[in-house]
């Protein structure tokens, strides 16, 4: 290869003075001759001797990057981030299985700052990529425009990326070439074209899918719709849980199941009594084996927080505790994975999905045919009044138990509102949800601090010997933590009254009344 050729390509793009790039994305194979035909007097010469390299398409499970219009690919040990109308970013490191905050600093890592902290990068697709440099030559064989073509293929499709590079003094030709590419059929400025070409029909994961509801739709159909949808959401998380990609898979799995369970328990009288009891048992059984794993995940995610809570000389005991948690998590994971991969589990999930596909296999209860809107209003109004009744009675002397109950009722209210949201005015909903979320955050922290104390005590008693003695280091660390957590729980509790008063404003009251109760007057 001559030196003439060596100087072309990637590194040139970065160093050339005044270099600016245009990007074109095609969901198909590119036809260079079509470009050449649009450029009379010029020839397009594409480098021939290149080899296809395997690439991985990275994103997190919910495809945050794709939703943002970005594409992150890993080739060899380097990451490239593609964005609309931006120079592709490059960083020498691998990303698969890693969290953004754990990547070494670099331009890709910097651009991905806002990527969800709890989500790991995972391979959501793969294929082969052939990078070819090309030049647009005039009749003197002088280079007037340079570019790079990426021909990408996967087992399900192909796509092309074209990067154009301006050369000083050849602006007019550049414009012509740019137009020639832009005029190619299917040529797009959005990265989405690459996804569409390479992975047509790739399923996007959504933790909260939109569920279409009709105002007069029978409540049993609404319940079936919601349960069917969240069963599928839960199932989409199974492989990520087994592969242990990040903790959000298990979390989303549990949230989906909890939603299903709350439909079963909150939609009273929609299913027959027998079936309600049966379903409650079935879903409780599915969820139960995940509880300990989630607890451990939460402790481990909060590890730094725990270490910051107590002085450094107590850290060794804490470290011992976290080492135990880590190894226990390993055991839990293999137990859970075995379960998820078992034939029995697959059969029962398949059976459940069939059960809730339509209402043919469901036993209707007395409320089964009630119209969704009417039923929603009644449920939400009832739950709202219950929340208010508990909350208004809370004083500094109220037992913790009552505060816990308030938390649970707020959660039920929130779920009900979210399930039926499509039936109501979105603006009013937003106004109510904001102070409700704040109250829930408050109650959530109160609960976390209390659960954590219990868990720490349980841990210590489990670690103690027959005489009830524990390792001094562990005892000191746990004692210190409990003292701090108890303080926090108390101060969080004192905030509950204020948060509720904020939620209980005259505007919110009116909104609740007008949204869910007015028609009865």
């Amino acid at each position, binding site marked *: 290869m*001559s*030196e*003439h050729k060596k*100087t072309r390509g990637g*590194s*040139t793009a970065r*160093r*050339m*003075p*005044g*270099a600016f790039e245009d990007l074109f994305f095609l969901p198909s194979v590119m036809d260079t001759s079509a470009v050449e035909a649009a450029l009379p007097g010029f020839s397009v010469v594409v480098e021939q001797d290149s080899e296809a390299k395997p690439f991985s398409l990275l994103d997190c499970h919910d495809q945050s990057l794709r939703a943002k219009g970005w594409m992150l690919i890993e080739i060899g040990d380097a990451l490239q981030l593609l964005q609309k109308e931006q120079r592709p970013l490059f960083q020498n490191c691998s990303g698969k299985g890693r969290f953004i905050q754990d990547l070494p600093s670099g331009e890709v890592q910097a651009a991905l700052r806002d990527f969800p902290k709890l989500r790991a990068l995972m391979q959501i697709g793969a294929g082969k990529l052939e990078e070819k440099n090309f*030049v647009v030559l*005039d009749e*003197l*064989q*002088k*280079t007037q425009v340079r570019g790079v073509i990426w021909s990408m293929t996967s087992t399900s499709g192909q796509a092309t990326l074209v990067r154009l590079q301006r*050369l*000083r*003094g*050849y602006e007019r030709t550049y414009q012509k070439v740019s137009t020639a590419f832009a005029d190619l059929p299917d040529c797009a400025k959005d990265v989405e074209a690459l996804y569409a070409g390479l992975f047509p029909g790739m399923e996007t994961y959504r933790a909260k899918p939109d569920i279409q509801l009709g105002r007069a739709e029978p409540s049993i159909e609404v319940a079936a719709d919601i349960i069917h949808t969240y069963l599928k959401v839960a199932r989409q998380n199974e492989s990520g849980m087994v592969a242990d990609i990040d903790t959000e898979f298990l979390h989303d799995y549990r949230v989906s199941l909890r939603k299903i369970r709350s439909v079963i328990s909150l939609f009273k009288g929609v299913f027959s009594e027998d079936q309600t009891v049966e379903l409650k048992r079935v879903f409780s059984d599915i969820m139960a084996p995940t509880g300990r794993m989630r607890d451990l995940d939460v402790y481990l995610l909060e590890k730094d927080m725990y270490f910051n809570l107590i002085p450094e000389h107590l850290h060794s005991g804490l470290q011992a505790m976290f080492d135990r948690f880590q190894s226990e998590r390993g055991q839990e994971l293999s137990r859970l994975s075995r379960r998820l991969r078992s034939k029995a589990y697959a059969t029962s999930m398949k059976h459940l999905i069939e059960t809730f596909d339509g209402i043919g296999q469901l036993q209707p209860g007395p409320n089964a045919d009630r119209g969704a809107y009417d039923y929603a209003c009644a449920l939400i109004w009832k739950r709202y009044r219950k929340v208010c009744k508990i909350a208004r009675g809370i004083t500094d002397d109220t037992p913790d138990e009552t505060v816990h109950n308030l938390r649970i009722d707020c959660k039920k209210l929130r779920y009900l509102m979210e399930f039926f949201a499509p039936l109501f005015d979105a603006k009013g909903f937003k106004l109510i949800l904001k102070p409700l979320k704040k109250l829930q955050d408050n109650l959530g922290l109160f609960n976390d601090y209390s659960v954590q104390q219990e868990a720490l005590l349980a841990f210590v008693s489990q670690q103690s010997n027959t005489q009830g003695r524990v390792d001094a280091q562990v005892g000191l660390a746990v004692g210190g933590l409990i003292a701090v957590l108890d303080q926090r729980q108390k101060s969080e509790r004192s905030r509950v009254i204020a948060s509720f008063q904020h939620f209980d404003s005259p505007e919110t009251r009116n909104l609740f009344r007008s949204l869910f109760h007015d028609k009865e007057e």
Partner: protein
Amino acid sequence: MKIIACYSNKGGVGKTATSVNLAHAYAQAGKQVLLCDLDPQGASGFYFRVKPSKKLTDARFFEDVERFTKAIRASDFEGLDVLPANLTFRDFDVFLSRMRNKRSRLKKALVSAGSDYDVVLLDCPPNFSTLSENIFKAADEIVVPVIPTTLSERTFDQLVRFFDEHKLRKKKLRAFFSMVQKRKVLHQETMASMRKLYPKRFLQTAVPFAADIEKMGQHRAPVSTYAGRSAACVAYRALFDELENGVVSTQ
């Protein structure tokens, strides 16, 4: 920024070939280079397949910085741009002083266009005039190709005398023997006597007379792109090394 003038008060000594190959060598070494084709007979633009800019013959050219920067053309090589200009003497003067002056609009325009050149190489017209004096003042280094013949010896003497008379810094003069034919006794003898006469003026590197250099006209590209292992290519690389790093290669 360093200004290197490629100059000869005698024609046909391989000045343009030197400009083109040196500019290419600097760019290959990772520098941002602007090669200014100032010689109306010269053809450094031709060697890079860059067509001369019609706009630049305009008298008002240097009053219009934007048009100047727009006339700059990227070559086919990374970091190497060409200014294909046939400038009038007056314009050339202004050009030199503005390239030198950091605060001039020309300099600022170049910087803002992302091209703060490390090296500006001037392929100069072969004249002896006030113009030349300005080149000698403005340039950091003046590379002078000298064919080892009696006639060239005389013109080089004139050049050195000119420097003396005008109290110019002779240190800037970096002469080298060009189009050397080793088999010619005359060449050998002239080289020996001139090195003796001007021990500090001559670089050690000598560029041979080579068909590969003449072929630049056919290839319209620097020698190293089509004859990377030729003696000519090696010589130009050595010339660059000696100029830039003071390294004398043993050929």
